[in-house]
């Protein structure tokens, strides 16, 4: 039988893309969550300018991360239930590559569009433009790392009785390096230091994840499927 690998790629990307398109709820949920946090904050802190500016950048970050986490740990679950994960397993293409593509599509279509909201919210919270610019860059890179971590965690918890019982618990500690380096960049910019070393560290972490994550995920998906 002759197998056409190009077809597999096309089909895979089409599937992922269409699924995300049809179930925009994930995306909407994230946005609404972000808005929720950003509105709630001034309501609790009180509208006083000084307090707000102190924490405004933190708010944007928290809003972004907290809104991504609930989606992250569901990367595989619906495919698992629908039986698509099985189809991926039956596919002649290596599962590792499929996972890598899946993560990329997820990142590209679901997370990257969120960057639009960074400037909007930042303006609402009076964050200076230079920091907004760096925020966007860090977020674009860091979120890829997040997706890869999410892939590990959600595949690890696939076979558990009540899914996503532990996956947010796993995501958090794994994500902290990304978080610290990302924050390092912003702090450096704020205090007029060179942000690049931190940025390189951030990129390194993401590159490492790019290699490890598909391996671990594929392994644990296989375990979840054949059990």
């Amino acid at each position, binding site marked *: *039988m002759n*197998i*056409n*690998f190009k*077809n*597999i790629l*096309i*089909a*895979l990307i*089409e*599937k992922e893309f*269409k*699924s995300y398109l*049809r*179930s925009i709820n994930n995306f909407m949920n994230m946005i609404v969550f972000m808005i929720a946090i950003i509105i709630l904050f001034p309501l609790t802190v009180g509208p006083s300018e000084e307090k707000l500016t102190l924490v405004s950048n933190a708010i944007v970050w928290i809003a972004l991360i907290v809104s991504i986490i609930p989606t992250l740990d569901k990367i595989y679950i619906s495919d698992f239930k*629908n*039986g*698509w994960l*099985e*189809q*991926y*397993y*039956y*596919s*002649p*293409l290596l599962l590792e590559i499929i996972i890598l593509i899946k993560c990329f599509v997820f990142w590209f279509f679901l997370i990257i569009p969120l960057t639009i909201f960074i400037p909007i919210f930042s303006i609402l919270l009076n964050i200076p433009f230079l920091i907004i610019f760096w925020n966007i860059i860090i977020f674009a890179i860091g979120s890829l790392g997040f997706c890869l971590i999410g892939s590990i965690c959600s595949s690890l918890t696939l076979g558990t009785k009540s899914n996503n019982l532990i996956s947010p618990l796993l995501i958090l500690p794994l994500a902290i390096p990304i978080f610290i380096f990302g924050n390092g960049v912003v702090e450096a910019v704020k205090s007029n230091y060179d942000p690049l070393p931190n940025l390189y560290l951030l990129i390194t972490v993401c590159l490492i994840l790019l290699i490890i994550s598909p391996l671990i995920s594929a392994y644990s998906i296989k375990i979840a*499927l*054949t*059990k």
Partner: protein
Amino acid sequence: MKSRLKDNMILKNISLTRGLKTIFSNLNIEFLCPGLNIIKGENGSGKTSLLMMISTLLLEDRGTIIRLGKLKKNDWLNEHILIKQNSSLSDELTIEENLKIWCGLRGWDFNTDKIEKSLKNFGILKYKNFLVSECSSGIKKKAELSKLNFDESFKLKCWLLDEPLNHLDENGKLFLKKIMDKFINMNGTILQTSHEKKINHKNFKIIKL
């Protein structure tokens, strides 16, 4: 085509547990190969588990499974189709999209004509652009079974069908029988579970669990 004649499919001393439950212990089966194997047994006797085990979705605890002349695992994955009881189509995609993507993932061609032909044979061409969530159970089942009706599917070595007749109407059953017969004539092996009393095929082996 001829090479398939020498294939065999044997379970030797198989034990399987799911959860804490032992489903088989020391099971020995030799399947008719090529040919139609009908697996019978009362509810909960492990028919579905057997198919999943053969398809490598469940791991046996002990024993050996010879899959079509000791195929390597990856080849085996490419050389069979498992149709489960429950639809494995995405609710948020249309029937056509589902089948297209399915073909693509297998590395097969996926042009619209091909899909349409298969759907037409099952008489559900008009539901082509329906979201799966908006189809009746029988239509879903037919869409699922259309996966068997592609040219490439007939060139495979083995079909594993779990209660394929459920939900099907008369015409659906007749057509399914037709393609199953065609596949067997092309020296394919079918493992089918079923609760039907009367079996319409000419040549088959019944396996009691």
